[in-house]
């Protein structure tokens, strides 16, 4: 009896650990440039979305601020709060230094843009099917 209780607990724990292993919530994706796969680490993706050029031909694009993924991306990839990012872009814009990434109002619009634009980089939720030739650059849990 005691043995079967241990077995049940073990099965439940295994199931629970499987359930708690969260699927990625967000994927950073890109369209290969010159038909070569893109290779960017998180720091480079962050730089790109902060207006720092990383490589020729890369085009960052995001979602508008009313989208939950926008905040998740800012928190997890950029590593800054929304208000600080808005302040940063106000400074860049009114000193003529940099322009913010293009913005789309829905994931589908953003995905369509990335699918059609070589060098485009953006982010979508993990459960959205990715068309060819879009590739995954980074997974955020």
């Amino acid at each position, binding site marked *: 009896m005691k043995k079967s209780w241990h077995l049940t607990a073990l099965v439940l724990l295994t199931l629970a650990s499987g359930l708690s292993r969260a699927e990625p919530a967000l994927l950073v994706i890109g369209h290969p440039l010159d038909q070569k796969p893109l290779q960017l680490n998180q720091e480079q993706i962050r730089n790109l979305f902060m207006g720092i050029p990383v490589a020729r031909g890369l085009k960052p694009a995001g979602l508008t601020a009313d989208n939950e993924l926008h905040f998740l991306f800012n928190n997890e990839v950029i590593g800054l709060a929304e208000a600080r990012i808005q302040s940063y872009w106000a*400074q860049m814009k009114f*000193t003529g230094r940099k322009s913010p990434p293009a913005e789309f109002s829905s994931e589908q619009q953003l995905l369509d843009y990335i699918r059609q634009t070589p060098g485009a980089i953006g982010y979508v939720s993990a459960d959205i099917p990715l068309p060819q030739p879009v590739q995954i650059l980074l997974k955020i849990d």
Partner: protein
Amino acid sequence: MRIYSGMALTSAAMLTGLNMIAADVCANTSDRFELSGFARLVGGYLDSHQQTVEGYENSFALDQQSLLALQPTWHLSDQLALTAQLLAHSSDSRRSGVEWLYLSWQPEPAWQFRAGKLRTPFFSFSDSLDVGYSYPWITPPVQLYNSLLFPTFKGANASYTWSGPDLAVQLEGLYGYYKGDVVMAGSRIDAQTEVSNMTGFNLNLSRNNLRLRLSWNSGDNHTEIARLQPLQDALQQTGMDDSYNSLQADGKIQVYGAGLSYEDVSSFYRAEWVKIDTEMDLAPQLTSWYASAGQLFGRWSGHLTFARSSYSSATPADELAAFRDDPASPLYPLAAGYYQAYANIPRGGLDSYTLGLRWDFRLNMALKAELTELREHNPHSGFFSPAVAMDDSSSNVKQRATLYQIGWEWVF
């Protein structure tokens, strides 16, 4: 308490109207033309009956730092754009008009060239000083940001950015000239200045959310101070050459700066240091710095900032020393005038402790509240101005006051 209710109402009506216009304009902005802008409404009160700071006195005022700006940009091609920034300040002592007008050319993402009338990027926020939304304070530390000698220049700058897997480097260089008013210790003095050969370099290194900024700016200064002209003429006519030369405001100015900042999703830390060196006897060396730490709580953030400035002493010539205590001498009035001119030059230092709150209550808008305790650690820091007639001994007293401010920031 004096409340500029008329101005507040006018501003509110104006801003409401502008909000509608901006929404309409933005909706109709074409790919080639873009109109954006920013506004701030700032109110302040200084709890001192005897002194003013930054134009604030012991009555609530909305007209010292409130402003409205429009920025039209014409994209002439994918690489070439013409940008203007038209600014309307509520305060007469601040400059209104065309603050920026430049042509920018970006042949590739790493390179940017701009030419025209530009802001001088002495410190991290000097070129966005009017855009209150871009920084945590209502008034950035006056010890640095209100000691800007020449806030704009006409010329060109070039910047190059390189980024690798772990590090990004940006190098910016500028060359140009400045002609206009001069600011010393936050006050626009009655002087016309020309700075030629303005040269500057800024280096920015960033890794993750850590950023280091090093800067050096220099220029050959020629300033004419109208108030000193009669004294200078008299010194020249009496052959007091050393004294005359010591009042000449000609020479090289060099500004050295360093800044370090770190920020993440929940906190931010920033420190900046500057040293301003001149070849002019009557313009003492200024060293200023600040350190700031802040915490974010959702849409709210709070910060504590300490700032300090210290002037070196300006040393007058000693030709007239023998006559300053001899009222019977015919040279006594000249000596008195000369030493009085030197006595008016700031030689002290100012400490400030600021507690600030910011609420980003909606996208592109923020409300702020700020309390700043200003204390001179050495008398005559230059940041306090007498609100009432005072005797000369007041310049030997350490001044202190508290500045209360509230602000509304908007970018569109």
